[in-house]
Structure formats: C-alpha cells, structure tokens
C-alpha cells in the first residue's frame, strides 16, 4: 500500500487523487480548447475568441455552460445502452492514461513498472467507445465514422507501439519515469529520430487529428460518431479529445524529448522540472495545431496504406537496428546515423507513394469506366 497523500486512508486518498485528476484534466482541456481556437485563429489570419472575458479567456467556460444547459437528446431509434455509454468509454480510458503521465520526479499519480504497456492498453479501450457511439446512434454517417475509427486505430496502434518499444529498448525498462531518468544527458530524440517521427505521426492518428481526422471528417461524415450527440455527452467527446491531446504531448515529451530531466532537470529541482514538461508539451501541442491548420485530410485507403506499407516496416526496422546495436554493444552514434537514414527513407517513401497516382491516372479512368458500364447494365 502506498502512503496516502495527506496521510489518509488509502481509499480516501485514492478518491482525492481521482478528483484532482478529473478537475485538473477538465481545466486543462478547457484551456487547450481556448488555446487551439486562439492559435488557429492566428493561422487563419483572424483573431479568435475575444469577446468573452479578457482576451476571450472565458470562452471555454461559456461554451461549457452552454453545453451543460443543452438538452441531452437521444434519437428514437438509437440503442439506448450503447448510445449513452459510448461517451464514457471514450472519456474514462483517456483519464486513466493520466495515471502514468510524468510531470516531475515523484509527481506521477502512480509509477507503474509496466507504465508504457498500461498506457497503450488503456488508451486503446477508448476506441470501443467510438464504435459504440457510431453503432448506437442509428445514423449512417455515425456508423461509417465509427468503423473508420476502428480501422484507423487498429492500423496505427502497431507503429505506435513499435516505436514505443524502440525507446524502451534503449532504456531497458517499460517504466515511463525510468525512461525519463535515462535521458538526463541526452534526450531520446537524438538516438531515435525515426522512432520519434513515426510516433508523432501515429499519435496524430490516435488522436484523430488532421490529417488523420477521417473518423470525424467534417466535410464527409459530418462529425462521424458525434453526429447525433448533443449537450453534455457531446462535450465529453470534446473534453476527451483535448485531454488526450494533452496526455499524448506529455507522453511524447517524456519519452523522446527528455521529459522533466533534460536539460538540468535533476540539478535545478522540482519547479524547473514542471516548467520543462509544460514547455515541451506546449511545443508539441502547438505543432499539432499547426499541422491541423495546414494539411488536408487523407483518404481512408491512403491512411491505411501509409500505416501498413510505410510506417510499420520502418518501425520494425528501427527495432531491429536497436537490437543489433544493443546486443553487440556497438557505439550509440550508429543509432543516430541509422535513425537519420530512416528519416530520409521515410520522406522518400512518402514522396514516392504520393507521386505514384500521377502515373496511374489512366488506370483510374479505366476503372471508373468499367464501373460506370457495370452500373449502367
């Protein structure tokens, strides 16, 4: 039994910790919504929210109040259980992921030896919620969205986990805090640039952020699984999305950018560690918003092809290289070289995959003609 936070009964202590998590995450998610709107506004050559409170700071509060006040509608033909419980299954796993997120040395809700495994396991549960929401809504857009979400999550989970694996191979542990502490002198991104990029891409897909926002694709399936939700249930999806954005950025910064350790984490103490974590996470969040403002959405087959044909082989390759270097005790700089080579390979493959359609324009026309005549007959 761990000692309680305030020397209390462990059960009471657990409840207090949970309340802190839920409160903190809600506030963080609301803050992120404000930040995203403000930053996106700048990218869009406009100002963003500014009327509610100073600099529009209260916009998220106003939105939250509005959503709470809205009627919680359920379509008549919707499956009551799956429809009503879908949002919880999206929401709760994301909050559970918070348990292992490292902010400072000694300030993790629970340091787990299998932290990475726990995080991966918990975060993939939320996909069940997406499918439930999509299926239970009795709406075809929602169903297509739910199915897309499932397909996407299954494909991107693999490069996601494999690039996590390559980091934990270096540190020799699955404990997130120990991985962070192994980066006191050099952050992992130096040794594993390829794994970092693959992980970042896969994280975008996990978060359903553009260019992988296919399940919610506003211009195609009009919000996907959320299409029938309103009020508080809809806001749970929304909060979940931003909470997971936050947790994912914390995780990336912990695993690849040195988290609270690099630079001078141990020397300068707790306050500096928190600053480090927050700065790194904010940089990543800004990057993710930037990506959102500038790229179109991929198509479902391009998305799947990219995961299976490019990301997965490359992340396997990374694991293999790591294995060789570690087993034969080769110089670590080899890892950097191999990683950079992998990055160039990734860029080249991506470019190649994109330029290929140019040659197959005639083929596409022929296929369309065949289908056309089939439909006519």
């Amino acid at each position, binding site marked *: 039994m761990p000692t309680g936070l305030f020397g209390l009964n462990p059960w009471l202590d657990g409840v207090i910790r949970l309340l802190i998590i839920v409160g903190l995450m809600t506030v963080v998610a609301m803050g992120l919504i404000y930040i995203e709107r403000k930053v996106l506004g700048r990218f869009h*050559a406009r100002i963003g929210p500014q009327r509610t409170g100073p600099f529009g700071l209260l916009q998220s509060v106003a939105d939250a109040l509005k959503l709470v006040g809205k009627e919680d509608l359920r379509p008549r033909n919707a499956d009551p259980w799956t429809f009503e419980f879908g949002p919880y299954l999206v929401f709760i796993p994301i909050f559970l992921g918070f348990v292992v997120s490292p902010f400072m040395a000694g300030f993790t809700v629970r340091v787990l030896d299998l932290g990475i495994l726990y995080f991966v396991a918990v975060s993939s549960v939320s996909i069940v919620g997406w499918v439930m929401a999509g299926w239970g809504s009795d709406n*075809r857009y929602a169903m*297509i969205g739910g199915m897309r979400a499932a397909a996407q999550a299954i494909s991107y989970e693999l490069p996601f986990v494999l690039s996590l694996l390559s980091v934990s191979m270096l540190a020799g542990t699955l404990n997130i805090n120990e991985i962070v502490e192994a980066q006191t002198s050099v952050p992992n991104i130096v040794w594993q640039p390829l794994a970092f990029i693959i992980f970042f891409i896969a994280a975008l897909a996990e978060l359903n952020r553009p260019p992988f926002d296919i399940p919610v694709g*506003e*211009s195609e399936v009009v919000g996907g699984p959320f299409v029938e939700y309103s009020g508080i249930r809809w806001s749970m999806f929304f909060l979940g999305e931003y909470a997971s954005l936050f947790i994912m950025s914390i995780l990336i910064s912990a695993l690849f950018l040195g988290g609270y350790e690099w630079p001078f984490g141990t020397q300068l103490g707790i306050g500096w560690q928190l600053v480090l974590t927050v700065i790194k996470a904010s940089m990543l969040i800004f990057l993710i918003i930037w990506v959102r403002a500038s790229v*179109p959405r991929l198509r479902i087959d391009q998305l799947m092809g990219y995961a299976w044909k490019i990301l997965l082989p490359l992340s396997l390759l990374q694991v293999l290289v790591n294995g060789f270097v570690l087993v034969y005790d080769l110089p670590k700089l080899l890892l950097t070289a191999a990683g950079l080579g992998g990055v160039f390979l990734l860029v080249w493959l991506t470019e190649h995959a*994109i330029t290929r359609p140019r040659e197959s*324009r005639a083929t596409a026309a022929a296929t*369309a003609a065949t289908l056309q005549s089939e439909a006519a007959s």
Partner: protein
Amino acid sequence: MVIESAHEFETQDLLLNVGPQHPSTHGVFRMVMQVDGEVVRDIIPYIGYLHRGAEKLCETMDYRQGIGFMDRTEYLAAMNAELSYVMAVEKLAELEVPDRAQWIRMILVELNRLSSHLMFMGAFGIDVGVFGTPFIYAWREREAIIDLFEEISGDRMMYAYLRPGGLAWDVPANFVPRCREVLTAVRQGIADFDGLLTKNEIFIARTQGIGIVSAADAIDFGMSGPSIRASGVPLDVRREEPYLKYDEIKWDVITATEGDVYARYLCRLAEMRESVKIVEQCLDRLQPGPIMPEKMPRMLRTPPGEVYIRTEAPRGEFGIYMVSKGGNRPYRLKVRSACLSNLQALKHMSVGLYVADAIIVLGSIDIVLSEVDR
C-alpha cells in the same frame, strides 16, 4: 445456431443520403450515394430545393426589374449573370453601348470571376479537409473585391449595377487606383494558394487521378467553363464569340489535359491570373466618356424577336434565351445554367471512387445551387 440459408449473410449496399443539409453540398444539393463500405457504387442527384421560378418571374417584370433576378440566380457571380441579361435586352432593343461602359463592364465581370474563383478555392479547401485556413485566406481577398463592388454599386452581393444600354451610374473617381489595390491583394492571395494547396503533398495525393472526365465525355455532357477546359477542350465563349472588348486585349485560354480534380483546380487558379491580366489591360484603356447611350427611352420597349446571348461566367457558359413580343417585358426568358450541365457529369466522375472522393469531385465542379434550380 444452425444457419438455415445463405440468405442470412447476404450483404447489401448502404444508401447514404448526402444533403440537402450537409456541409459539403455547396447549398441545398442532395445526392443519395449507394456505398459499398467506402466505395461509391451509384449516385442519384436530386435538385430543385432552391427553385424559385426566377425565369417565370422575369416575364412579369419590365426589363430593368429583371436585373435583380439575375443577381439572385447566380449570386456568386452576379455581374456575369447581369451581363448576359442586359446584353440580351440590348440585342433585342438594338442599343449601342458606349465604350466606357463596355470597359467598365469588362473590369467588373473579371473581378467577379476572381471573387467567384476565390470562393471556389476556399470551399474546395474545406472539402479536401483543411480546417478553415484556405477558406479564410480566400475570404480575405474576396472581401477586398466585394468592398470595391460595394463602393461602386452600393451593395455587397446583389449589385443590380448594369443596365440595358450601359451602367446605372458612373464609377467613383478613385475607381482605377482602388482596382489596382485590389489586384495587388488578389495577386498575393493567388500566391498564398500556390503555397498552401497547389504544392501540398496530401492535396496532390487526394486530387490527382480522381474524378476524371475525358474530353469527349465532357462535350457529351455539355460541360463548359473551367470544368471542360481542364479536360483539354479549349472552349471559352470569350474567345469563340468575343463580346465586350475581349478581342482587343491579350489573354490566353487556359486548358489542362488530365481532366481530373487537380486539373480543374489548376485551371481555375491559372484563370485567376489571366483575369488579373485582363483587368490590368482594361484599366489602362479606360477613358472618360458617357456610360449610357444618348437616346434612352424612359421606358425601354423592345421590338418582337428572340435572342440567345451567352457569356463566359466563372462556372461556364451562362446563356439567356429571351423572346419578346413587343412591350416592356420579355415574353419568355430561359437561363442556360452552366452548373446544371456540369452537374450531369457527377455520377460519371464519382462512381467507383471513395465517399471522400465523391465529395471533392462535387466540390471541383463548383456548383451554385441557385443557378441550377433557378
């Protein structure tokens, strides 16, 4: 459980109703897609949600009142629609339009083509899935053009500025410098789009090789405008039957050969550059002078006759067929809608593609529902 027949595992295509309330149908277009997983097997388009009987209404109005209906028929390129209408009336009434009015008309329709294509760029960016950025970039330059139109005509959308015979009133004194300002902004905007979309890898991956329509098919469907020029048919009414002063200035007909979504996008982008060139030349040649014929009757009456006038609107050939039996109102008016003809190719282009592609194919033919339904 024992499976009694194979019937229980029969699969069925899903019917997906897109529109009339859907973010990507550009108004109130509705299509029922038959989808097999993510692949579109069939599309049934439904139109008519925005039918107001504008053509019939024009028959009850005198010639000047009809101009307002043309604005509402093609609200994204109102000047171009007005131009077809007033040209038809002028031909019936045998009116000579003064030079200055012709140059100003040309400037206005080309500026409106720019604003309409900017609208396309923005909306298409959203169809492809960029969250808002191209839309608001496009809006920025479009706003400049619309501000200029407001200074000229007093309205931001329903200009009603052209008149049979010329213009309602002369342009403001600072018209030429203001136009040049707007052109500078638009040129910058076009460059922004080049950076944001044209070279964007995902954009290329999404738009190249899909929604192909061959030159022969495009002609069969009666397509026109950038949509047919992207298939390699150099059909441009401004070149085929020059009206206004298009034969006096230098400009190119933009064509592409591929006929896919990307080619249609590039055609529009290149056409915007041509429009900028045209407006610049017009501004150089603009001379002071009258804007209406000297002898205009208070109430315009036309001799009996019939006429078909077509002009190159941003979306293609916008034609007016007008019959007069004498008097101050048309006996019959029919609008030849470019969007309606272009829309015919939708099924041909999108069957066999993914749902997401069908959406951008629809976006790439750039329909305005009020013109389709009238």
